[in-house]
């Protein structure tokens, strides 16, 4: 799950960079934009269909992937119950914030 979420986070970053560049460079063709688009396509090709569908739904209204820090969701800033976190680490439930529904990239456990 961690690899998938890291890929999703990279995809989200590229999506935002693309939005920024479209704002800045408008319709002008910039070689960097084509590079970013091809990276996005490559990443999307590597991700499961169902995850991508959920990602696109979340992105339509803002951010899709956030980081967990000390048991707190980086999106809604609410605590994630320890039981849920343990189940996520075990792989028993998807890595999704139970409060806001965003994908939750968990901190690496030492």
């Amino acid at each position, binding site marked *: 799950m961690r690899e998938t979420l890291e890929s999703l986070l990279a995809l989200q970053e590229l999506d935002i960079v693309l939005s920024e560049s479209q704002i800045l460079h408008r319709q002008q063709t910039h070689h960097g*934009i084509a590079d970013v688009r091809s990276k996005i396509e490559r990443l999307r090709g590597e991700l499961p269909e169902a995850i991508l569908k959920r990602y696109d739904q979340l992105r339509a209204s803002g951010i899709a992937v956030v980081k967990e820090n000390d048991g707190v969701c980086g999106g809604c800033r609410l605590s994630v119950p320890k039981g849920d976190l343990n189940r996520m680490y075990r792989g028993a439930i998807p890595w999704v914030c139970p409060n806001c529904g965003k994908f939750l990239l968990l901190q690496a456990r030492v």
Partner: protein
Amino acid sequence: MMDLKALLPASNIILDLAAKQRHELLTVLVSPLVSKGVIKDQAQFIADLEQRESQITTQIETAVALPHARSNAVRRLGLTVGIAPAPGIEYTPGAPELCRLFFLIAVPAFAPTAHLPLLQRLACFAHDRPRVEKLLASTSPARAARQLVMFKPKL
């Protein structure tokens, strides 16, 4: 619409930017935000700015650059404006024009799209060459701030 007045006090506008290259320029532009506590780690934020520049340049063809980056070193959204004396500074190596006007945006990592409305507004301003020329001729930070705050983009 975003309140630019709150985001851009006159102390965040630097006229006569004294810098010869990009790293030096970014250090000067970041300093008001560091002193106000918007940025907690200057080196980290400048590294994030350079990383963002390596993806696609933020320089546009009207000799304006809008460096910005999402960073864990940023506490809240921040903006500084810098004006360099003519002929300007080489911001993007190999770019046909030197840059004279800089809008630096600090974006907190926990709100990675919070700056997009601001970027949209500043980009509208930056693509309007007569307005850019007028801003470049500003004689005081307060006048420059007023010009930017009064600007209403046609979206």
